[in-house]
């Protein structure tokens, strides 16, 4: 290590600092994370083995895996997982398509590109609350833009959020609108990483658009597309704010995602320990996805060298 020669002299304290620079530098950050994240996580983990309700004074009772058993055999939970799976799948797929098309739009340089790009990137910078609130406004049956637009054609106002499919579509539309620019950014990064001389060579070699895309462009964006999918899957899996604000899970429970459900179990039904168990199942999924994500991030870094 480069600093070892500093460790040879100085007072005992100085030597201690010189030998443990890494740990000392990261210690404050780790301390904060342990207090605010790791400790609650462990607490949560502990809670998931007890029968406990946060709104009662009753002593927690140790019940082993009963909460997990309850949660995993609960058909409602599976229903929520299904709802989440549908939303995640359609949401991420559409984000890929829209993000990809947007990236193609902005692939080349043209006058005004930077400003227009800004317009497209704005949704990503909005707060979930704003997106949720205003899409609710747009979907509103009497004066909402959507209903008004459809009324102009059919003569009838349109209640999007009244049906299950409509409510799902409404949520997905808002999320796709908000996060497609994210995919666009990644795809654009891939597109600009293609060395220009490859396109020049392909032009001289008279390659068709299609062949050029698959042999030159696609290999450069493949890795980033995968990362986009994983990243957006993780995020969509946690989808909470938009659902909470646009449909509150309704109509009925048809758009209640697993994140919304955990929130309800914890703060409306006050089944604290059950929500902890459920939370741990979510955490497991997220850890797997994050691991996968980092695996591909590293592989990409290695390929670059």
């Amino acid at each position: 290590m480069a600093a070892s020669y500093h460790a040879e002299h100085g007072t005992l304290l100085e030597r201690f600092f010189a030998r443990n620079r890494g740990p000392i530098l990261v210690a404050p950050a780790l301390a904060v994370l342990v207090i605010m994240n790791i400790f609650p996580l462990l607490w949560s983990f502990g809670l998931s083995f007890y029968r406990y309700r946060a709104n009662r004074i009753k002593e927690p009772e140790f019940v082993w895996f009963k909460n997990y058993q309850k949660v995993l055999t609960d058909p409602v939970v599976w229903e929520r997982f299904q709802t989440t799976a549908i939303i995640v799948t359609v949401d991420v797929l559409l984000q890929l398509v829209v993000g990809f098309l947007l990236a193609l739009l902005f692939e080349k340089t043209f006058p005004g590109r930077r400003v227009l790009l800004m317009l497209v990137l704005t949704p990503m910078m909005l707060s979930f609350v704003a997106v949720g609130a205003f899409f609710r406004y747009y979907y509103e049956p009497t004066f909402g833009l959507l209903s008004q637009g459809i009324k102009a054609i059919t003569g009838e106002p349109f209640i999007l959020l009244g049906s299950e499919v409509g409510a799902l579509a409404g949520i997905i539309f808002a999320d796709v609108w908000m996060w497609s620019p994210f995919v666009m950014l990644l795809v654009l990064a891939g597109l600009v990483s293609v060395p220009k001389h490859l396109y020049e060579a392909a032009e001289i070699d008279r390659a068709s658009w299609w062949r050029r895309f698959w042999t030159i462009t696609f290999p450069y964006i493949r890795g980033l597309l995968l990362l986009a999918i994983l990243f957006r899957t993780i995020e969509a899996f946690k989808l909470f704010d938009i659902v909470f604000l646009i449909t509150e899970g309704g109509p009925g429970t048809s758009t209640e995602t697993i994140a919304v459900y955990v929130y309800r179990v914890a703060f409306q039904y006050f089944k604290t320990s059950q929500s902890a168990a459920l939370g741990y199942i979510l955490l497991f999924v997220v850890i797997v996805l994050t691991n996968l994500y980092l695996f591909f991030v590293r592989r990409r870094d290695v390929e670059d060298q």
Partner: protein
Amino acid sequence: MARRRREIGKAGWGRTAFSTVISFIYFFPVLWIILTAFKTHTDALSTPPKFIFTPTLENFVSVFARAYERGGAAVDTHFDLFFFNSIFIAGASVGVALVIGTIAAYGFSRWPLRGNETYLFIILTTRMLPPIIVIIPIFIMFRLSGLSGSYIGIILLYAAFNLPFTIWMMKSFFDEIPREVEDAARMDGSSEMKIFFRICLPQVKAGIAATAVFGLILTWNEFLFALLLTGRDTRTVPVAMAQTIGGDIGVRWGLLAAIETLFLIPVVFVTFLLQNQLLRGVTFGTIKR
């Protein structure tokens, strides 16, 4: 072949025109928010929707002047306080996260620990995990310690919330700067303190700015923790907005739009300035190019 050919990678005004149309369609929901901000309450709820209307500043006035006009009870919604809270809480927590996180990132980048990658993975996971998992214990912790509803509590929580992002971002910036200069300084007998403050930090200035801004945007927009852990006096704008909608009767869309527009302007401005760092920002520093 009469068609005019172009250099590779460049498109012309035709693309500008096409992109303008698409971009404006895409931007339309935001545009509509901005338009609504300038509408009277009646205009905001009119059917069919009004594209052309007499703009009014009354929504913005009622956001700012509220504290001074005691007369109308209906407008007394304390948004000036909430704006202050949002700015103060986001600013303070990002500041704390930046100081602690930058130092840690420097450590992870330059003085790797045994199991460095594992630490980094766990750190990223704490950012990726559904906040709902930790919120119950935190909720209980806050209640027991009396931090619930206080500035210090939410600032600490947000600092922790920003730390993983800050560490990953700053590490990616530190990783990029060459080590030769530091080694040369070490040869010249500079202290480690001096190397960090005089050599490394100046080189990641842009990175610190980018990290701060993205941290601010993320914190600024956070909803769930704020909903559960802020009190009447520490409420942030997103929570207050959500509560404005909650009361179903007579949502003042114009006011809401005005708030969001004010909320949005600084964000759009800095995003424009940071366009080149955007990819890194939105992927928590995991992807640089």
